[in-house]
Structures are given as structure tokens and as C-alpha cells.
């Protein structure tokens, strides 16, 4: 097999996996758009904020530390003791042993009153517990709770007041929201690049490398992380579809998406459904943020990558979940192949604009996207 073809195959495979990531962000857009007609520009920044919060909780960073330090002249940065500090482990072991030994001896000799025993236990145990080591699972859970709280706040303070406005006004409001959230995220967690590790597999997949090497004479390099992302995305999409098809809340969501007034008249609370939808979008944003963050660090460019979900949506149609996925794959493969085949001739870095131009050209021929509902306009 000629080398060029094999390279093209590798590029295609990586493009497909990148496309999965785009589709993941696009999914969040579709969810909100279907249920509330809001085209949520802030989805990308939500992914950034969610990933930042997750890192912050995992590392035990103090929120708004920079601001607090600037105002009060303090030097707070982390909760608990730094596990890398000198004397950390000796101190931890001694305090742990003390927590075990002191109460036992106290009980055996009956020299210390029960109150003193409790106090000692609290001090030593507390010191030990105050070391901040949050495993990935509870940190993710906490972040999900924060995203739900965020969904509530957004609905309560912004979009509740904008019900019935023109779509374009809502769109501009989400741009404002994106700026606001970005500022809050920077204030809370700082704007440096953070490494995110929630235990997803990293590095080149050896099995694919070896098998393709034996079959083709050239090992394809495919990142384990991309494969994990694809699998997680597939699970997420299937569970979202199942959720919207088979649960009561899911039915309410679809009813609202279909017709606000009719949904209201059968007793569905619009407010509740919208909070639900924003929470779901927040969770999808968290997943997307974790994937992109594990890949290239959590940083501001995350929200720009998410911007690329927009052409994905335009290709797939704003209202279709399968459309978001197919669109994501087309854009992922298209831009990878274009950069591979034509990029070197015209200066490279074409992935900056290829997706948008492809979507623009495509839309001229099919304005509602691949899977979008036919646009019917009335006077």
C-alpha cells in the first residue's frame, strides 16, 4: 500500500476522533436550542469553566484566591497541606498514629475524660483530614452540582426575563453570558494553563500500532485518549437519547421543544424544563471540557475550540442530535484531510477557517443543514 494512502488513513482516523470531540460540544448547543430556542454561544466557555472548576476542586485551590490575596494581603492558594512540602509525610504519619494511639491508651488507662479524648481525636484527625486529596469521582460529582447551580442562576437571573424575545437578542445575551462566565472563571481559578487528569488512558494505543504494523507495514498512531473520548461520547449520546425518550422529564423536554404554549397548557413547568436543559448542557460541557482538557490542558483556547462546534451545528442542523454527530465527524475528517492534502501548499493552519467556510458553502445549498427541519416562514 502506498505511503500517502496510509498517512491519509491515519489522518482520517484522527480527524474522526477529533470530530467526536466537536460533536460533543455541539450536542450541548442542540440540547438547549431544541428546548428553549436559545442558541447558546456560552457553551464553549461553560466547558472551560467546568474543566477549571474540576481541576480546582481536585487540587484544592481556593476560589478567588488571587482576588482575596490582592484585597486582604494574604497568601492563600490551596486548601489543606501541600503533599509536596517538606516534613509533610512525617507529620501526616505522626498525626495519624497519634489519632490511633492516644485515644486507645486513654481508654485503656481511663486517665483522660471522654471529652478530652474527643478533643484530641478531633485535632489530630482533623489535621490529617485537612490534607486535600479529592479523587476524580467526587470532584466530578461536585462539579456537576456546581453546573446545576449555574443552570439555575442563569435561568433565574437572565433568561427568565428574556422569555419571548427575538432569537437574535437571546443569542447576544448568551455572548454576554460567555464574557461574564469567562471573567468569573478567571477570577475564581486564575487564567494559567492547568493540567487535568481524571485517570483517562493516555498515550499511543499499542494494540492498533502493532496490528496495523503487521498488516500494512506501518503502525498507525492513535491516541488512547481519543478512543476513550469516542466511547464516552457514544455512551453519553445514547444515555441522553434514552433519557429524552423514556423518562418523564425527557418527555417534558420534548414537549417543550415541540411547542411552548401547548406544553404550558398541559401543566409542564417551562422554568423547570429550562433549568433541566441548562443543567444537562452543563454536564455535557463538563464532559467536553474534561476530554479537551486532558488532551491539551485546560486553558482559554478551549472556548475557541468550542466555537468550532458552530459550523458543526450548521452542517448538521440546529435541532438534530444525530445531525450534531454526523456534522462533527464530517468537519473533523474534512479539516484534517484538507490540512493534510492542501494545507502545505497554501501555508498551513487551514483548520482555523476550513470548518466555517465548508459550512458556509454547504448552507448556501441547504440552508437548514443536513438533518434540520425544513424552515417554513410565514408572514
Amino acid at each position, binding site marked *: 500500500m502506498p505511503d500517502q494512502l496510509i498517512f491519509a488513513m491515519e489522518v482520517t482516523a484522527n480527524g474522526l476522533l477529533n470530530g467526536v470531540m466537536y460533536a460533543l460540544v455541539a450536542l450541548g448547543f442542540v440540547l438547549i436550542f431544541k428546548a428553549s430556542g436559545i442558541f447558546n454561544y456560552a457553551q464553549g466557555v461553560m466547558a472551560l469553566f467546568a474543566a477549571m472548576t474540576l481541576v480546582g476542586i481536585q487540587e484544592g485551590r481556593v476560589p478567588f484566591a488571587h482576588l482575596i490575596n490582592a484585597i486582604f494581603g494574604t497568601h492563600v492558594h490551596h486548601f489543606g497541606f501541600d503533599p509536596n512540602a517538606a516534613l509533610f509525610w512525617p507529620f501526616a504519619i505522626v498525626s495519624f498514629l497519634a489519632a490511633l494511639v492516644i485515644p486507645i491508651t486513654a481508654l485503656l488507662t481511663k486517665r483522660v475524660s471522654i471529652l478530652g479524648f474527643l478533643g484530641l481525636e478531633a485535632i489530630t484527625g482533623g489535621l490529617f483530614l485537612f490534607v486535600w486529596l479529592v479523587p476524580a469521582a467526587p470532584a466530578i460529582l461536585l462539579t456537576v452540582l456546581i453546573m446545576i447551580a449555574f443552570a439555575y442562576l442563569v435561568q433565574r437571573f437572565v433568561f427568565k426575563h*428574556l422569555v419571548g424575545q427575538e432569537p437574535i*437578542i437571546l443569542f447576544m445575551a448568551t455572548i454576554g453570558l460567555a464574557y461574564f462566565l469567562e471573567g468569573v472563571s478567571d477570577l475564581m481559578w486564575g487564567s494559567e494553563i492547568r493540567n487535568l487528569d481524571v485517570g483517562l488512558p493516555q498515550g499511543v494505543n499499542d494494540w492498533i500500532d502493532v496490528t496495523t504494523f503487521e498488516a500494512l507495514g506501518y503502525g498507525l498512531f492513535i491516541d488512547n485518549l481519543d478512543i476513550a473520548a469516542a466511547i464516552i461520547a457514544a455512551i453519553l449520546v445514547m444515555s441522553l437519547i434514552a433519557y429524552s425518550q423514556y423518562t418523564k422529564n425527557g418527555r417534558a423536554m420534548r414537549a417543550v421543544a415541540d411547542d411552548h404554549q401547548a406544553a404550558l397548557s398541559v401543566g409542564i413547568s417551562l422554568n423547570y424544563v429550562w433549568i433541566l436543559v441548562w443543567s444537562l448542557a452543563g454536564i455535557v460541557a463538563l464532559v467536553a471540557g474534561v476530554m479537551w482538557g486532558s488532551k491539551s490542558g485546560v486553558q482559554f483556547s478551549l472556548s475557541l475550540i468550542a466555537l468550532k462546534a458552530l459550523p458543526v451545528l450548521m452542517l448538521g442542523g440546529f435541532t438534530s442530535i444525530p445531525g450534531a454527530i454526523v456534522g462533527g465527524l464530517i468537519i473533523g475528517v474534512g479539516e484534517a484531510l484538507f490540512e493534510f492534502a492542501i494545507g502545505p501548499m497554501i501555508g498551513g493552519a487551514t483548520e482555523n477557517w476550513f470548518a466555517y467556510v465548508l459550512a458556509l458553502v454547504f448552507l448556501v445549498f441547504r440552508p437548514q443543514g443536513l438533518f434540520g427541519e425544513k424552515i417554513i416562514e410565514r408572514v
Partner: protein
Amino acid sequence: MFYREAGDFSTTYSEDNQTFPIKFDRYRYYLVLLVGAVVVPFLINDYWANSLLIPFLIYAIAAIGLNILTGYCGQVSLGTGGFMAVGAYTSYKLMTAFPGLDMISITLLSGVMTAMVGVAFGLPSLRIKGFYLAVATLAAQFFLVWMFNKVPWFFNYSASGQISAPERDFFYFINLPVTGPNAEAWAKYLFCFLFVFVLSWVARNLTRGSVGRQWMAIRDMDIAAEIIGVNPLKAKLTAFAVSSFYVGISGALLFTVYLGAVEVGEVYGITKSFLVLFMIIIGGLGSIFGSFAGAAFMVLLPVALKLLLVDTMGLDTALSTHFQFVIVGALIMFFLIVEPHGLARLWALAKEKLRLWPFPH
């Protein structure tokens, strides 16, 4: 008391149709013009020119341009930064290719070039609507910036990839440099002021004439407009052309007069598109005065925040930029919720109140 229209009678149609039918407004307008054209140039120094007045004037042109497209014609564009870059690079190519050319011609030609590019990117607007179009204009933004970054002809094969403005004169018989290191602050200011004055006068008259009414008909409902005989092709493309002309001039001035040297991704990136969009949302969609108010607000805000947070409260600049994001975002949402017509509407309400003051009815 302060704002009266009593005794102000129009006896001819042209008097009734003028932009400022109320005498008080008209005199205030003349006063502002007089101060801007005659008094300010004598008082201006480098600090005032560079941190407030020149950026305000330049962004006001961009805001008027985007307001024509978005506020009057209803086509949301996120490609303003890219179109400003077209203006800047056209003026750069003209300045270096024709050293004898004066700045007024260069700037106008840059506007014309941008108008043509704008029409090309506006063509899909006939098929694509709403935020589909908004995203489509992102194609213009990213493609244009990429092109100016990657095609060496545009930056004359310079090693750094930057463009910098050589010294050029005001007009062909006025030998007064307005670009380059030797340009005086007052000359730059007057140059921008001239463009702002002429362009806003043209914009005001375009938007209240038949072209402007066609734009507004398209904005309010394009199908209905088509049925009553507005040609959507003509209306949308003229809006794109005029808007891009303004935006291109603003981009050219930003490069030649204000910054002098430009790195395209930094200056004309997507953030610039949003900056101008925010100006018209805060200032008021569909209002020339709103464009000025919004531009003034967005130029003043960082300066005021720096004064307040950095110089007074002693926070560092990174924190102050973060606060700026939070405040701008919150203000955008606040204005969209409370007053979708922006500062311009607040101004109109204030005038209404002043008209009745001190009596409430």
C-alpha cells in the same frame, strides 16, 4: 426648563424633515461640532488623543457601520474584525505601492475595497438567515485573518509578518503628516474627526431615506418586505456594502493613524468583532447616536476600570482585565433585559423627562 420645543414651528417641509427639528437639539449639535473641530485640537495632548479621543472616533465609525448592518438591516455579523483587517491591509498596500498618495484617498479606497469584500461575503445572506448567518460571518472572520497572516504578499514579505504605516500626508495639497512617528496628536485627531463627521452625516441621511427604510423593512420581517416590493437582494447587499465601507475605513484608521504597526491576529481577531458588537448593543441597535454612545462607553470602561481598580485600589492589571470581562458581560445581559434599545433609548427617555421638568405632566 432645560429642554423646550415650545415656540418652535416649522413652516416648510424641509424644516420639518431635518435631522434635528428642535432648535435646542440643533444648537447643541452645532456646539458639539464647534468644540470638536475648533476647541479640542488646541487642547489635545498625546495622552488624551491616544487613550480616549482617537480610539473613540475610530470605533464610532466601526459601530455605525455594524449598526447599519445589524441594527438597521437585521443581519448579525461576527466578521467585523476580519473586515477591519481588509481595510487595514488595503491601506498598507496602497501606502507602500503608491508613496505619493494622500491619506484621504487611501482611506476612502480602503473602504471601497472592504465594501467589495463585504458584498462577496454578504451574498450567502440571501439564503442564510438569523444566527446561521452570524456563524457564516465567522467564516469571513477566520478566513480573512488567516489569509493576511499566511500570504506574504499582503505584508510585503516582511520577516516579522507585521505591517507598519509609513509617513503620509493629510491631503495632496495639505502637507501635514497624519501617520508615522512624526504625526502630531491634533492632526491625527482632526483627520479622524473629519471622517467621523462626514460618515455619520451620510449614515444618518441614508438611514432615514428610502434605502434605510428598505433596510428596516427587511429587518422587521423579510418576507413581508419582499411582498410589499422591497428587493431583498438590493437591500441586503447595499447594507453589506455600506456597512463594510464604514468598517473598512475604521480598520484602516485604526492601523494607519492610531496603532501605526499591526499584527493581524492580535488586533483584528474575533475579540474585535465582539467589541464592536457590544458597542452597538450597549449603545442602542438601530441608532446613530447609540453607536457613538456605545463606542464612548466601551472605550471609557477599561480606562475607568484601570483608574478605579489599579490606581486607586491597588489591584494588579490581570485582575482588572478579569473584572472587565465580568462587568462587560453583565452589562450586556443587563441592557438586553432592561433596555434592549441601549443608551440611546435612555438618552431619549431623559430628554422626554427634561421636556416636562419641573412639572410631571
